[in-house]
């Protein structure tokens, strides 16, 4: 059942929000011990929200999201509901405020089932850095679901929710979406408010929907998008009706195929799936245009300077004083800082804080951070140039399908390369989607990425919808 279908059943009162929520809570109770997709399940809060949703569905004040059971990545602050960010540091943190994203979802009547697992502070590509343990891929529980929104992806793939909310700093929505066979959308930087979303790298972080289809994603995006006076980096632009903009044909649409995203050593099955997808787009009326994004190869080093630099500063507030983990019996202030942070943060977080502190330190700033900002502008310029000639860009989402748990956790560089195809988009602030487009020999999902110009989420969703109307890949589900 998709979100759109469920919304229709709710609206026609063929099912109540409480029945729907109960069904999902039961499924979570059964499958979450295996998958570890949720860190917190808010049984009482969900049932209360479902009850209120039923009132609205009966009195005509419902929105299309009213009564829809969803999961929210555990870095969106939810008032009085534990928000851990996947870290020991915040294991007991109950925010006294609500993130804009969850406030909008609640106002629309969505039912938040719980908070989904994630890499600690969203730093990771496999969901293995979570303090609350790794998430398992529902397609093969010996494999990772991708990260950092691994819990949101796995929860959706295992049908533990009708939609989930993730966040994407370097691919954290798109990469797990690809590895779990779902649809994930990273909106334009500033399209969705960051207020109340715990920061990893402020200039790259962006919240977005993960769903079963482009049509479902369109509904969720419509609910959470928009300017927010609490986030000065949010964009002051109207939110279009994404659902109405969905089309089934792509006549006249020009799709750019960047040569830099088809390395010779690309996994053959992924290569094959992309080639088939290209043919589907041609059949839908689109034309394919080879393009070049020449600065692509600098994206990973650029990202691993900017993101850790911002993170090292964003994470300074976790000092054990006002909230969060504090070490036992601190000797003095320095001891409290050092031990609280040393014991409260995991290895990957500490690695990135050190990296970020290093690249910002005096004597290195110009060589690293300033240079990275310049390259970042060049990467954005590449896309700007390309979009003079094409409407969308098509690439693989990931270089491989889901890899086994433990495979790369001790090899940071190999892990960082998982985001090879997704990182440039964050550096350029563009909207991009991953949608399923095939499966490998083991039946593991393959995802493809579509990238659009700033604020062209409607074009992106429309193309994805046309593709999903013509192909069955998004309907494949793992064995229960």
């Amino acid at each position, binding site marked *: 059942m998709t979100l759109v279908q469920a919304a229709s059943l709710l609206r026609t009162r063929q099912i109540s929000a409480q029945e729907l929520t109960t069904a999902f809570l039961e499924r979570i109770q059964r499958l979450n011990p295996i998958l570890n997709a949720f860190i917190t399940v808010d049984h009482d809060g969900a049932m209360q929200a479902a009850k209120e949703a039923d009132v609205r569905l009966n009195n005509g004040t419902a929105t299309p999201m009213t009564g829809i059971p969803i999961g929210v990545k555990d870095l969106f602050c939810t008032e009085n509901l534990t928000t851990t960010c996947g870290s020991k540091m915040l294991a007991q943190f109950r925010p006294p405020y609500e993130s804009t994203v969850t406030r909008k979802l609640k106002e629309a009547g969505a039912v938040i089932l719980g908070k989904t697992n994630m890499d600690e502070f969203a730093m990771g590509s496999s969901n293995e850095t979570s303090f609350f343990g790794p998430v398992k891929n529902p397609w093969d529980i010996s494999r990772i679901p991708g990260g950092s929104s691994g819990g949101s992806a796995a929860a959706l793939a295992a049908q533990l929710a009708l939609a989930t909310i993730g966040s994407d700093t370097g691919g954290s929505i798109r990469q797990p979406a690809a590895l779990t066979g779902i649809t994930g959308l990273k909106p334009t930087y500033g399209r969705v408010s960051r207020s109340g979303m715990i920061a990893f790298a402020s200039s790259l972080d962006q919240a977005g929907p993960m769903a079963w289809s482009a049509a479902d994603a369109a509904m969720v995006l419509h609910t959470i998008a928009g300017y927010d006076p609490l986030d000065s980096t949010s964009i002051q632009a109207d939110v279009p009706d994404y659902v109405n903009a969905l089309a089934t044909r792509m006549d006249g649409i020009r799709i750019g195929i960047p040569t830099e995203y088809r390395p010779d050593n690309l996994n053959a099955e992924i290569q094959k799936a992309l080639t088939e997808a290209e043919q589907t787009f041609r059949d839908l009326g689109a034309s394919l245009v080879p393009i070049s994004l020449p600065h692509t190869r600098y994206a990973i080093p650029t990202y691993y300077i900017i993101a850790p630099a911002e993170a090292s500063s964003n994470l300074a*507030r976790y000092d054990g004083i006002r909230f969060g983990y504090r070490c036992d019996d601190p000797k003095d202030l320095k001891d409290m800082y050092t031990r609280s942070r040393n014991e409260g943060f995991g290895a990957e977080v500490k690695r990135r804080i050190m990296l970020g502190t290093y690249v910002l330190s005096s004597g290195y700033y110009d060589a690293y951070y300033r240079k990275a900002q310049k390259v970042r502008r060049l990467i954005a310029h590449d896309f700007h140039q390309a979009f003079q000639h094409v409407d969308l860009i098509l690439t693989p989402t990931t270089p491989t399908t889901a890899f086994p748990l433990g495979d790369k956790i001790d090899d940071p560089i190999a892990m960082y390369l998982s985001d090879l195809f997704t990182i440039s988009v964050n550096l350029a602030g563009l909207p991009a989607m991953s949608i399923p487009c095939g499966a490998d020999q083991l039946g593991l999902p393959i995802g493809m990425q579509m990238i659009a110009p700033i604020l062209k989420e409607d074009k992106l969703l429309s193309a994805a919808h046309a593709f999903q109307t013509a192909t069955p890949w998004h309907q494949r589900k793992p064995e229960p």
Partner: protein
Amino acid sequence: MSHDPLYEMVIGLEVHAQMRTRSKIFCGCSTTFGAEANTQICPVCAAFPGVLPVLNTELVQMAIKTGLAIHGKIREKSEFSRKNYFYPDLPAGYQISQFELPIIEQGELTIERDDGSHKRIGITRIHMEVDAGKSLHEGIQGASWIDLNRTGTPLLEIVSEPDLSTPQEAGAYLKKLRAILRYLQVCDGNMEEGSLRCDANVSVRRHGHTKLGTRTELKNLNSIRNVMRAIEYEANRQIDVLESGGSIVQETRLWDANVNTSRPMRNKEEAHDYRYFPEPDLPPLVITQQRIDAVAQHLPELPDAKGQRFIRELGLSEYDAGVLTATREMAMFFEASVQQGAHPKTAANWISVELLGRLNRENLEIEQSKVSPNHLGRLITLIQNNEISGKIAKQVFDIMFETGANPETIVQEHGLKQVSDTGAIESIIAQVLADNPQQVQQYREGKTKVIGFLVGQVMKATQGKANPTAVNAILQDKLTG
């Protein structure tokens, strides 16, 4: 000056001025001073996870005002940066400040030196930043308390060029800057309470040398007097070091006003690599020319312009104009008195001599004066209308200063009204002439100086209330008639 005449001082000042915005720089919390600890805070002040700063536009207006007042360049695009360091009263672990692109650059102000000459002092930059909280170390042994009320209070940091050459110039610069900030009503300028803070960079060099000496930074200067003393002390210390063959260590020194000396801060207190980088939570601040023009239209008249106008239009001396524009309150007092009909020069005199004299003796500010400008203006009007004499006016003023009562009531209640009624004066004169036949005789014999004695007798008989001009005229008339 006590320092070695072979050397000259090179002084630059960094002033932190707390802006009087209603709410804090990045959240809606109140900025009121003196509230109970941690009552004016929110998740933004306390840097909770996920919360974001939103820039207070009132602060931007104030910064533009200040920039215009010091003839600075207001950048079309300025940028906030993070200054990273760990300290318990800095909840985010970084201070949001402006680093590479400050809102204002290249300003200046003019100071008057002790010899009356003027000197232009460059202002390198003004930038906006956030104040930190306060660590309170008293109370329980081994514990510290953090009050975050001040966290998020907006500051302007105003950095001068090293154009100041004496402690006196530094004092004059601070007074002028404080006056401008107060005229603009953007800052209380209270150094004791910390709403205006000043650090001084001091170096010395031999006269004629162009290369700057190694400088030291002086902190903890909580009054203009301390700024001047600390600079004097530091310059002498540096000269002593150089004269004894040593060299100056670049360091930060804390002034101790109790013993009038400074000591170096421990290295631990200052060894920071702040790792500045552009604040990603705030987009660059863009200020249009229209916005600057709109602020400029509502800029109040500033001390220099006001002083010039007092000289040009009201005929004050340069000295009086300087005294009366030294603070916004003084100028307002003067202008309100004149508005009551007091002659400007007379009002200037009364304020700078009588009022300021009394206030200084009692250690009061003009805002604390019980004599209102309205009452002072009316007192001067009474003199101008010959209703009281200047001498009586001083008696009335004394009562006004003590009680705050209005001059007319005082004159009424104490029966001090001047008698100009010729009939009444004539009968008193007749009595005086009758009582002093000897003096009348002397006058008529040509000893006309004796009239002074007779006037005195009349004034005595009227307890000083008779109009002396009228008394003189009538007396002469009677004596020669």
